């Protein structure tokens, strides 16, 4: 670890440094760490906020949307005056005001099969804060090939699903082999979403990202955490690596070239031959 903490940093991160579990070494590790946040919306906002506050040295923000007024009910890093501004830029402005230790890399693009490998390359951790199945399956598949862990979170109205996908553990397709047909599980724009819901879910994703960076604690690996805001319940369901998983099973893929990221995001084995 080449970094040493200066006096301002010792002050800023003192509540981390004072803990044995983190200490100056752990804080230096955060400052040396890099996290790619895919989506700067409802989930991404609290993730970016807490990663930046805690001094994660490099935060990548990938989002091709612009801030809309209807986002502001939950996407807490964006402001009324930034309506119309690209979300990646708005996120960067927020972080720059919060913590000068953090470098923000902005990617004002949709994550595609063409750009995903370059986009994720070199990051320690990915936080999947996207809002659609094709992106989620694409990120799962590409991150697995690149050996990068993912803190996954997804929301529906009053419910959240959170899990952590580490390179040696089960992947998203072990849990959900293919995506539902488009339209069968409605999105936030169609159904609405409780404003604070992505705050809770995003904070759990950020917690997982910190643990992965620090190498501390027990990641939410092989466990799917359900959060129900209405009942105020958390339930954990275990799941295992699927030997038949097309991405990480006994006969894994070696590239994403033959996967179609639309409709069911099916891994088309036959065309692979």
């Amino acid at each position, binding site marked *: 670890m080449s970094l040493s903490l200066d006096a301002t940093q010792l002050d800023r991160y003192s509540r981390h440094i004072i803990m044995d579990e983190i200490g100056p070494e752990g804080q230096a590790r955060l400052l040396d760490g890099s996290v790619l946040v895919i989506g700067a919306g409802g989930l991404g906002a609290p993730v970016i906020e807490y990663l930046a506050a805690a001094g994660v040295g490099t935060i990548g923000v990938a989002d091709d949307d612009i801030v809309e007024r209807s986002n502001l009910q939950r996407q807490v890093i964006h402001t009324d005056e930034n309506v119309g501004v690209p979300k990646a830029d708005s996120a960067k402005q927020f972080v720059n005001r919060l913590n000068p230790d953090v470098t923000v890399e902005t990617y004002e693009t949709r994550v595609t099969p063409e750009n995903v490998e370059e986009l994720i390359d070199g990051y320690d951790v990915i936080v999947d804060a996207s809002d659609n199945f094709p992106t989620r399956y694409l990120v799962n598949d590409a991150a697995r090939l690149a050996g990068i862990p993912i803190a996954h979170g997804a929301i529906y109205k009053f419910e959240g699903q959170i899990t952590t996908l580490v390179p040696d553990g089960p992947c998203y397709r072990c849990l959900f082999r293919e995506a539902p047909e488009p339209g069968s599980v409605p999105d936030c724009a169609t159904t609405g979403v409780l404003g604070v819901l992505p705050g809770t879910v995003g904070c759990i994703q950020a917690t997982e990202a910190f643990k992965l960076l620090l190498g501390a604690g027990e990641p939410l690996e092989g466990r799917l955490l359900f959060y129900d805001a209405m009942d105020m319940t958390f339930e954990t369901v275990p799941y295992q690596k*699927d030997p038949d998983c097309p991405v990480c099973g006994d006969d894994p893929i070696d590239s994403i070239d033959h996967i179609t990221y639309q409709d069911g995001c099916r891994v088309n084995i036959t065309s692979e031959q």
Partner: protein
Amino acid sequence: MQWKLFANLAEIAGERTISLAIDSDATVGDALDALLERHPSLSDEVLVADGELHDHINLLINGTNIHSLSGLETSIEPDDELALFPPVSGG
């Protein structure tokens, strides 16, 4: 036994937890049939044409996926909790 439904499945059914009486020799498939009889509109969401579960639908008995048991043939007890959930994608 009790069914617990998540996300859009709970919405389509209009209820989140459903208690059903089952026969002593009932299987998961029987419990699923009883659920779909009560809520026919769930069928398209849960089953493909051949009567198998959609690939993206998970069915758990007391927290264990039926894939690691005997699938729909797995036998169940009167106090078992079965859960049915799809992935969600919102962000």
